[in-house]
Every structure is written in structure tokens, then in C-alpha cells.
């Protein structure tokens, strides 16, 4: 009876209004390599973006829940979550307020998603790019479909001919001609559908961002700090492939690092532009609630996607001490499997022959046995800070390395032995005629 009463009362009461959710900034940011949407619930603190890059700000209302496994506040930000309408305001350190009205944009991947650099296309060009993308994608799909139809027709013709041939007719018609129509080039490019949002590119510095509603009032909960950071410096890193393990390259992004080599194989150095960032800022860029890096003075080197043009006239100067011992040019290389029981491979300089073959990598080759202590790219204007120290070492056996570790013990034993000898000599002298009286306690004193 009581249950029925409660149920009836519950039905009579109006349903509670759904919680509106919290204001979550959901910017589209880049680290110079790729674009990602990063959610900033209020608990995530200030926003972090890379300076001088295009940033798309999206402000939404979403439920926020704490996820203890990653110790992060996760926002239920989806395309369906309500957008907080208004004009984005950015206040710089001088107090200047800049209003950013939403504009059309799309994300354009000319080489495909996950390959090459993405670009934010904004304004009127966004619609043009999207239209041309749709046209090109449809044309590519049509061409592929036509090709598949021709392939299917050819297969059917061949099968029909084989059936005829199986009956051993007196007059066998000629077989269908060989199918030589090449498959159309795959179309990998991709563009997102155009949307509207405030878009900015900020100089390095600290800002305050907030959202002003159409009535002119500040939207509560939208005021946040924003940090735009830039590289501290730029330099040149190297991807180094040992000739006998070309698929297992090592990286040398920091110019302070020394390259150690045993000298048993050729080395292939592929220059890469790198940038040095404050580690905490760079880590927070894609993981704003990260607990990993707390030291604000740590820095890290990061490769930049704008790689070295393989056709660029770049050469490496080799030094042995203070003597320049030669230069090596950037060249394309191709890896060819060798036949026979050895199942090895050879790395050869790639010579374009007009076919479809492409080089496996582009690098500067350092021949095995070349005595050198450092290398640097010639004409360092394009690729600065490229000097690397190279040490060819033949490490001693593991046990031998422990010998210097025993030095303090040997020293102590020697010092003690010398001290004992001196003490014994002194006691002998003391025991001699005219010396100390008999009964002198000899040996170590307590």
C-alpha cells in the first residue's frame, strides 16, 4: 500500500530538470604535426596552445565525471552536446580585448588522415576546398568503380573463352587481350564538413579568454587563462640508421647528445628539423590533466613535420679533431633483398629509372671505417645547430669495467699497509737500545 502511494506521488510530481552541465572548452589544437580536439573541463585549469598556429575554439556544455584510473576529469563532449553561443573574447597581458566571431572552417588532410600535415582552412576558402574535395573524391570513386567494372568484364571474357576452349572447338576464337588498364591512383585526401567556430592564431604569451553572450553579458564559467607557447629554439636532429639494422633507427634530436658507434657498419644520417620546448607546456598541449611532468624547467626536443626536402642540396661535413676529412651529400637509398640462403639485404643508392620504384629513405651515408669525431651540415642557415660529436668506441669486457671501481679499496689497503709499516718501523726503533723501555704495547691502539 505504501509503495503504491509513493509511486503515485512520484508520478504526480514533475520530473526534475536535467543538469545543464559544465562549460567545457573543446579547442582544436596542433603540436605542429597533427590536429586534435582537447577537452578542457573547469577542473583542467588554463588552456595551452602552440603559438602562431591556427586554433579553433569550440565551447560546449557537457557533463564532467572524474575517472580515477587516469586521475582525469572526463567531459562528455560529443557533436550532440549543446554549443555555448556567443562571441569569444581574448584579453592579452596589456588588457586589450579582441572579440572573435565564429567563421567557417574545415580540417583538410591533403595526403590523407594520419599521413602528412593537416591544415585548417577557414573563411570562404573552406567552402571552395570542400566542394573541390567532394568533386575530386567522387571522380576518384567513379574512376575506381569504372576500373573495377572493366576488370570484372575482362574476367568474364576470360572465363567465357576458357569454357569455349574446354569444349575443344574446331575453330578456337582468339583469347581476350591482356588487361593493361592501370588502376587509378587512390584518392587519400580528406576534408571534414565545414562548421563555424571562433578561430585565432596567437603570439606567445599569457591571455584570458571568455565568452560574451548575444545580450552582451559574460557567460558564467567561461573565463579561463590561456597560455600560448613557442619553441625556445630550433635545431637539427638526425635519424640514424645502422647499415646492418636499417629498420631499427636511433634518433638524436638533442644537439648536446653524442653519437656512440662501434664502427662495425655504415651509418645513414637523415637530418630532421627539431624544436625545443618547455616540457611541461608541450605535454599539457595534448594532455592538459597530465600528472607526469611537473618540473617547469625541463625541456624536450620534438621533430617538426616540415621535414627536409629530399631534393635539397644538403651535405655533411666530416671532421677528425680539427681537420676536415670530407663531405657527404644527401642521397636517396633503396633497400634490396638479396637472394640465396643468406636472406640479407643491400642498401644501394637509388637511381631513378622512370618506373614506379621510390627510394626507401633519404640520408647521408657515413662509410664504415671513416675516422671522424664530429659532423655538421654544411650551409647551416637552413638547418641550424646540426653539429654532432661521434665517438667510435670498442668497450672493454663487462668485468674489466669493475676494476676502476675497486680503486678506493686498493687505495685504502695501500694506505693502511704503509701506515702499518711505518708504525712497525717506529716500534722497532723504540725497542732498540736507548729507545723506549721494554713493555711498550705494540700493534694497533684501540
Amino acid at each position, binding site marked *: 500500500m505504501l509503495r503504491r502511494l509513493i509511486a503515485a506521488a512520484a508520478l504526480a510530481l514533475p520530473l526534475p530538470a536535467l543538469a545543464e552541465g559544465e562549460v567545457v572548452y573543446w579547442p582544436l589544437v596542433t603540436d605542429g604535426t597533427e590536429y586534435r580536439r582537447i577537452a578542457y573541463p573547469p577542473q583542467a585549469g588554463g588552456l595551452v596552445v602552440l603559438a602562431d598556429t591556427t586554433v579553433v575554439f569550440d565551447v560546449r556544455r557537457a557533463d564532467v565525471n572524474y575517472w580515477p*584510473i587516469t586521475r582525469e576529469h572526463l567531459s562528455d563532449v560529443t557533436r550532440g552536446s549543446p554549443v555555448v553561443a556567443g562571441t569569444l573574447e581574448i584579453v592579452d597581458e596589456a588588457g586589450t580585448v579582441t572579440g572573435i566571431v565564429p567563421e567557417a572552417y574545415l580540417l583538410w588532410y591533403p595526403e590523407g588522415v594520419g599521413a602528412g600535415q593537416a591544415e585548417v582552412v577557414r573563411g570562404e576558402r573552406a567552402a571552395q576546398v570542400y566542394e573541390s574535395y567532394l568533386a575530386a573524391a567522387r571522380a576518384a570513386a567513379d574512376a575506381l568503380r569504372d576500373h573495377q567494372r572493366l576488370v570484372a568484364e575482362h574476367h568474364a571474357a576470360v572465363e567465357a573463352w576458357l569454357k569455349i576452349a574446354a569444349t575443344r572447338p574446331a575453330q578456337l576464337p582468339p583469347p581476350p587481350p591482356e588487361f593493361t588498364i592501370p588502376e587509378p591512383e587512390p584518392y587519400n585526401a580528406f576534408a571534414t564538413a565545414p562548421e563555424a567556430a571562433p578561430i585565432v592564431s596567437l603570439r606567445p604569451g599569457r591571455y584570458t579568454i571568455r565568452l560574451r553572450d548575444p545580450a552582451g553579458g559574460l557567460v558564467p564559467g567561461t573565463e579561463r587563462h590561456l597560455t600560448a607557447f613557442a619553441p625556445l629554439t630550433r635545431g637539427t636532429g638526425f635519424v640514424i640508421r645502422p647499415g646492418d639494422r636499417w629498420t631499427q633507427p*636511433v634518433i638524436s634530436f638533442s644537439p648536446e647528445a*653524442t*653519437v656512440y658507434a662501434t664502427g662495425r657498419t655504415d651509418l645513414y644520417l637523415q637530418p630532421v628539423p627539431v624544436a625545443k620546448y618547455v616540457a611541461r607546456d608541450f605535454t599539457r598541449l595534448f594532455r592538459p590533466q597530465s600528472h607526469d611532468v611537473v618540473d617547469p624547467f*625541463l625541456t624536450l626536443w620534438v621533430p617538426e613535420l616540415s621535414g627536409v626536402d629530399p631534393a635539397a642540396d644538403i651535405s655533411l661535413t666530416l671532421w677528425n679533431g680539427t681537420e676536415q676529412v670530407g663531405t657527404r651529400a644527401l642521397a636517396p637509398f633503396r633497400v634490396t633483398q638479396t637472394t640465396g640462403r643468406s636472406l640479407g639485404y643491400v642498401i644501394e643508392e637509388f637511381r631513378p629509372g622512370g618506373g614506379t620504384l621510390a627510394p626507401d629513405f633519404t640520408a647521408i651515408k657515413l662509410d664504415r671505417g671513416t675516422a671522424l669525431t664530429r659532423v655538421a651540415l654544411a650551409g647551416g642557415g637552413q638547418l641550424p645547430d646540426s653539429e654532432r660529436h661521434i665517438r667510435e*668506441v670498442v*668497450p672493454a669486457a663487462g668485468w674489466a669495467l669493475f676494476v676502476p671501481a*675497486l680503486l*678506493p679499496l686498493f687505495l685504502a689497503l695501500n694506505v693502511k699497509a704503509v701506515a702499518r709499516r711505518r708504525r712497525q718501523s717506529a716500534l722497532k726503533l723504540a725497542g732498540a737500545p736507548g729507545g723506549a723501555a721494554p713493555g711498550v704495547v705494540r700493534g694497533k691502539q684501540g
Partner: protein
Amino acid sequence: MTPAPRHVPAARTVAVLARREAAAALGGFGVYIATTVALVAAVWLLLVDVRALDVAGILVPVDPYRAPLDVALLVLALFFAVSAAVSTARDRASGTLEVLFYGPVDETTYLLGKLVGLIVAYAVTLPLVAAGLFGVALLSGFALPGTLPASLVLSLVPAGMVVGFGILLAIGTSRVRSAVLVLGVVAFVMLGAAAANSIVLMVPIDHPSSPVLALRDALAGVNAVLHWVSPFAYMQRIVGEGVAIGAWQTAGIGVAGALVATCVMLALAAAWLRWRGVQRGGE
């Protein structure tokens, strides 16, 4: 009429006590064995890179001596913490403390003398560490980092903090064995918490109700406190996370923090010693 006792400057008393303490520390085999163990531990860690180079034929370490030097200095610091605790407890147990206080010695001069003496002994071991590492560098081919002298010199500050920590813990004990035991437990907790935190972070957690989650958060909290309290953490912050990677601001903040912490520990130790008295007594 009895003559007035001759005034002895406190600095001179500190110097005499420090000389006695340093001579006692350097006169035994312990310090040399500890230095050898420290270097053996360093070589053992360096062998990881040596073997990696041997296998791959190429290696680009940012600083192959960072972890080895960290461990070597940690081992040395631990030894001097034990030395400080043993020496302080032995002074009380043997009655030396009481005798000293009949002379121109007070709590501050006694503690300063002990601290300075053990820091001097620590400083004497540093050239041995440098020479050992130089030998290892010659044999392995891995060049010593240019920051090695700065790392060794700046390690004096956290080493002083470690010694002060050992003295502070030993003030409360009357027996050598108790002092070593207390220091061992505290050092084990401090170093073990950091190690346990690293291990727990590697354990995959697939459900919010996992008991590992509570352990991980508890260890993270403990480590956050130890980061600012543990003298061993200061050693790592100044040498491994500061000087070794060129983060001089980090090292500077660490040095300042270690100096303040050492002063606080000495002040606490002096107050405790004054409250407890210098006479022999059971615990």
C-alpha cells in the same frame, strides 16, 4: 683567586670537533668500502648502455652517467647518514658527549662540528668517485659529462642534509643499534616509497574498484610529501634532475631547499639535545 677560564671561539671548537669527526670517518675501512660499493653500483648501471651499444652497434644516450652517478651518490649519502647516526649515538653511549659538554662545547657547536666533519669526509671521497668514473670512462669509451664536477660539488649540499638527518634521528636514541635501526627504517620508507610508486605505476588498472588504484593514489601522495622532505629526494633532484640535464633552476631551488632543511634539522636536533640532556641514559 682562580683564573677565569680562557675563552675559546665557537668556530675553533667546531673546527676541532670537525677534524676529529673527519679523521674518525676517514681512518676506518668503512668509507672506502662504501665508495667501492657506490662505484660498483654505478658500473653495474652503466653496463646497461654498454651492452645496448654492443648489440645495436650505435647508441645516442643523452648522458650515460646520469643514473650511475645518481646511484653512486645515493649509496655514499646513505653511508654517511649511517655514520652520522652511529657516531652521534656512540658519543652518548660512551659518555663522550657528557665529557665534551664540560668543555667549551654546547649543542650547536657539537652538532655543527659533527656535520662539518662528515661533510669534509664526504668531500674527500668525491675525488675517488671522480677517479673511478674516469677509469670507467677510459675503458667503456663513454665520455664523462662536462657537468660531472658541478654535480659532485653541488652534491655536498644534499649530502649535508642527509648527514643532518642522520644526526637528528640519532639524537633520540641512546644506543648505536637503535640509531641504525631507526635510520634504516626511515631510509627504507623514503627510498622504498619512491620505488614502490614507480612499480605500481606500471601495473595496468582496468577497473575503478581495483585495490591497486587506492595504493597508487596513496603512494603518489606519500611521494609528493617526500619530494620536499626526503634528503635522498633532494640528492636526486639536485644532481639527476638538475645539474645532469642542465636544469640549473631546478638544481638551484633544490640547493636552497636542502640548505634550509639542513638548518631546520640542526636547529631541531639542538633543541632536542638540549631538552634530552647529554648524560648517558636508557631509552
